[in-house]
């Protein structure tokens, strides 16, 4: 599928990295890309169920434009949130809802995208999409 430019650039960059450790280091750095969601606002409602880490998010849709605010105690999980932030923030809800989670697998970040309880990324992605659908 055709990805938004910023995400496509990231996918291309990841495609040059073979070493899993380097991929994880890169994801670790992406944890800086999130729009902060203060811990004081974390609640059961904002929690991503199924993550081993404490991971929380809220989605704001203003004038049809999406903004994801999020955070996690695991830097790698927050890095994956940073990846989703790059993929969706500033885009229209209509566009974002076309996105599929497969890009994380294409980038070699995840071994599996099956929606099991331990698959934090899939649960993160599904929660973001659900919130956008509710709020658009």
């Amino acid at each position, binding site marked *: 599928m055709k990805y938004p430019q910023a995400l496509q650039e990231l996918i291309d960059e990841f495609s040059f990295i*073979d*070493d*899993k*450790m380097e*991929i*994880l*280091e890169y994801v*670790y750095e992406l944890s800086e890309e999130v729009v902060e969601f203060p811990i004081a606002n974390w609640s059961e409602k904002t929690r991503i169920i199924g993550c*081993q*880490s*404490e991971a929380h998010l809220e989605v704001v849709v203003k004038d049809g434009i999406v903004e994801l605010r999020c955070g996690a*105690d*695991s*830097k*790698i*999980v927050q890095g994956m949130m940073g990846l989703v932030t790059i993929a969706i923030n500033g885009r229209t809800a209509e566009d974002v809802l076309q996105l599929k989670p497969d890009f994380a697998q294409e980038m070699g970040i995840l071994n599996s995208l099956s929606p099991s309880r*331990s698959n934090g990324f899939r649960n993160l992605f599904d929660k973001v999409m659900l919130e956008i659908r509710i709020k658009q």
Partner: protein
Amino acid sequence: MSLKDDFPILSREVNGHPLVYLDNAATTQKPQVVIDAMSQYYSNSNANVHRAVHTLAGEATEGYEDCRRWIKSWFNAEKAILTGGTTEAINLVAHGWGRANLQAGDAIVLTEMEHHSDIVPWQILSEERGIEIRYVPVLDDFTLDMEAYIASLENAKLVCVVHTSNVLGVRNPVDELISLAHKAGAKILIDAAQAVPHDRIDFEQFNADFMAFSAHKMCGPTGIGALLVKNDAFEQMQPFMGGGDMIESVTTSGSTYQKNEHKFEAGTPKIAEAVGWSAAFDWMSKIDLPAHHERLLNIAKWTAEQLRGLGFTVYGRHQSGDGAVVSFLHPTIHSEDFARFLDAKGFAVRTGHHCAQPLLNRLGITGTIRASFYLYNTQDEAEKFIQIVQYIVEKFA
């Protein structure tokens, strides 16, 4: 030729590095003989057990019952019910013995150290029957509060306790727990899932009423386990699953049941898995288990000391008889991140609550990183593990 060569999976690479498998408390790897036995069964002898007179059915029945013979002989037990694993075995006690013998107001004793599989079945029964559950606390030195245990036994009907903790590796004083339970007039169930891979328990001498364990933690296949039961407890059990194979006769007005273990094995059983488990017993019979356990415990102890030196908190004590399990946490690097970095270097460890949330609540944490060692692991692997851990700490802490 090293013992490792018997396990084909251990020669593979993960993320470009040789696999070092340290998630043995979750499941162990299978030697080639187990894989071959299961494949050979499906290639050559596949049939349903117990009923048909044809040759294949005879071979399948022999294969299935041979596993029961192995279990009885390995553990010196008179009754061995084949189940889907430890969880199903405990559920069989809850529903097969508990429903027939526990009433509203009766008390059962669990500990804070239990795996969820030894908590949830009792909570379900408690809600259904109004049974009181008492939990024995875990002390700061990771042992059970024995004073509280003794107090909890008053008028208790059943004690359910883990032999060796899957999180801490701590071996509980099972002989004392069994003896005290019996003195108080209670029956006792031992969850031996983490014990049997390392310790060849003599069930008769052990004197517990029930003992549950799984094949897959001792080189056997997944999907099969056993419940050992003393004769008097066996007579008090009622089947909770009805169906084929467990009956003597069925009429429209009612059914009568088999008198032996088949009474609790309704439906087509785990035949290929039983054949695989027999092969695992045969393979393990050639291993000096006590010597390996001592070796592995020393590796675990050494690993724990190194981790403490690197600033980790280690949850466990690694005393004689304990499991070769090291649970640890870094003060700043999240356990899930740590496990992903280790995986990137070929090391398989477990993170999370290890299905023991009450214990982790007691310890004031939500999860640990757990490295658990088994027969094929070596000191050299532990040293490489510590080198990678040190690298991760230096880079990300």
